[in-house]
């Protein structure tokens, strides 16, 4: 049997170790780094935003912060946050992906009212990237269903980007065929039969189209289309903005569960607010995203062709309905996807 003194010694060592461990985790509880978990094609955008946000926050709050980034398909990222990827903020490309987090109490249910424009600091739309000279003559949604058109899109199952493509094509078809469901489905089946590759994220789809030279048209956000033309040169690719497309809002939210645990709420909130400042909007616009700040709108209006944008609310009755009717297992999307 251990002596009383021995037991006391053991206990005090244990207590000391515990204090140390707690002390360390206490030190971690006041971190100056935040993680922005985002969709796939926003890599360069947030790199640029972070580079400007850090000195701005230093100037206003006097703290040096680090902003870490993680990028993949928006819906996949939402799943990873639920699995424990410690996102202080999420910047997704789809309302439903943040709703997923709100449903599990990671994000406040009234998250859309916490920032202007339903918490979407910028927006874009599905557009087309085609090979130089547009040899297949793809200018509108109708052309995607033609025989012999090879399409590359991210997978609508894992990527918000891919879902917008599906919804935009359907929104166009609903108008074109005056709501005739049989004709709409027939059109969508033809479009998806033309898809050569379903990548998991938007950027992988771009790589498939640009580096692997697969397909005749890449359908992705206008920001990615114009950004790619700039990155790889307009002697190889043409950007096509169809006359009608779908409004793609990019919603943001503070992940309450994570920031409350880590004590990073002030930084996270400042970060999202920064996206709405004239400086933030200017950066966002320079990456070919459409913005709402008047000065930035004026500055970048030349780069955006005229387009009529259909809203999800008007065409489909809101995101909750979209999720239940179209994207649920066995929903309308599954009916038009080829059997993979």
């Amino acid at each position, binding site marked *: 049997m251990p002596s009383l003194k021995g037991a006391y010694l053991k206990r005090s060592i244990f207590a000391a170790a515990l204090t140390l461990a707690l002390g360390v985790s206490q030190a971690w509880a006041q971190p100056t780094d935040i993680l922005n978990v985002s969709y796939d094609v926003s*890599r360069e955008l947030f790199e640029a935003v972070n580079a400007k946000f850090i000195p701005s926050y230093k100037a206003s709050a006097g703290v040096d912060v680090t902003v*870490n980034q*993680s990028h*993949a398909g928006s819906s996949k990222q939402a799943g*990873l946050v639920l*699995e*424990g990827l410690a996102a202080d903020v999420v910047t997704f490309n789809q309302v439903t992906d943040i709703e997923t987090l709100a449903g599990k109490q990671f994000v406040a249910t009234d998250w859309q009212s916490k920032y202007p424009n339903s918490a979407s600091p910028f927006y874009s739309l599905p557009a087309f990237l085609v090979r130089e000279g547009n040899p297949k003559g793809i200018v509108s949604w109708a052309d995607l269903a033609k025989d012999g058109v090879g399409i590359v899109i991210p997978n609508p199952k894992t990527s918000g980007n891919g879902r917008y493509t599906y919804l935009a094509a359907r929104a166009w078809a609903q108008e074109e065929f005056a709501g005739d469901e049989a004709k709409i489905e027939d059109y969508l089946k033809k479009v998806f039969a033309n898809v050569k590759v379903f990548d998991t994220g938007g950027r992988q789809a771009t*790589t498939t189209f640009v*580096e692997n030279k697969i397909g005749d048209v890449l359908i992705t956000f206008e920001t990615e289309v114009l950004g790619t033309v700039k990155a790889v040169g307009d002697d190889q690719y043409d950007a096509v903005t169809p006359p009608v497309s779908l409004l793609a809002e990019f919603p943001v939210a503070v992940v309450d569960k994570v920031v409350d645990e880590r004590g990073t709420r002030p930084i996270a909130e400042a970060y999202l607010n920064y996206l709405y400042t004239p400086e933030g909007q200017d950066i966002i616009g320079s990456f070919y995203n459409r913005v709402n700040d008047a000065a930035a709108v004026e500055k970048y209006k030349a780069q955006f062709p005229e387009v009529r944008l259909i809203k999800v609310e008007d065409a489909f009755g809101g995101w909750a309905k979209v999720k239940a009717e179209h994207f649920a297992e066995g929903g309308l999307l599954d009916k038009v996807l080829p059997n993979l």
Partner: protein
Amino acid sequence: MQTNPADASRAGSPTRPGRAGWGLIALTYVSSALILAMPLVLIVTMAFRNGLDAYLANILAPDTLHAIFLTVLTAIVVVPINIVFGVCAAWLVTRYDFPGKRLLITIIEIPFSISPIVAGVIYLFLYGGQGLLGPVLADNGIKIMFTVWAIFLVSLFVTSPFVARELIPLMQQQGGEDEEAALSLGANGFQIFWNVTLPNIKWALLYGALLCNARVIGEFGAVSVVSGAIRGQTNTLPLQIELLFNDFNVSGAFAAASTLAALAVLTIVLKAALERVGATGRR
């Protein structure tokens, strides 16, 4: 069991190849060039296509440097653990008889036959926030998924059979007579292991550790599931290569790939050297 090239050449006297033989030899060279040599050459040329300065700048980019660091750190953590595990497992199954021994050998080999991506998903289901143990661990402030710990864990899982696989056949073949002799002369357990067992298995052990190391460094599938891809935090070198490629930073991707290729070549050279030394050492 591995056969030693030196033994093979001693076994039969070589004859000059006939016409069919030359054809096969030519085929071997052409396919090796296409499958092995050209990709390696391509990696190096692409990595250096913008000159040495650009290459160094790519390697020294903070995120790539961190990926190299994390990859090496993972190897430093995982390989020693797997050496200890492999020796223990091999010792157990070759020196003792117990019920369920065959089952144990099969279990040890499971990571070989499971696709790494499945391994990653299993860990996600186990330790993820919606997984079996994840919520309990999270309540106690322990976070595994999307941290380096998850990367260590899946790497451990994927590479756990390597050392044991090398040792078990050898130790079976050697039998336990040496150890029994040592025991009868009054050696204790540690003395037996250190002075008798270890010298007998050291080459196979090193070989297994080397293979394990190569696999840890190159692992992609399992790590990609549990990493969370946080830039400059949880990207190992193979993940960083994919990330750079998708960032349209092709020369950066190839520069990172060249460091991975260099590590692989180093492994091959060490392996060849070990086989040589091992062959003379055994005699």
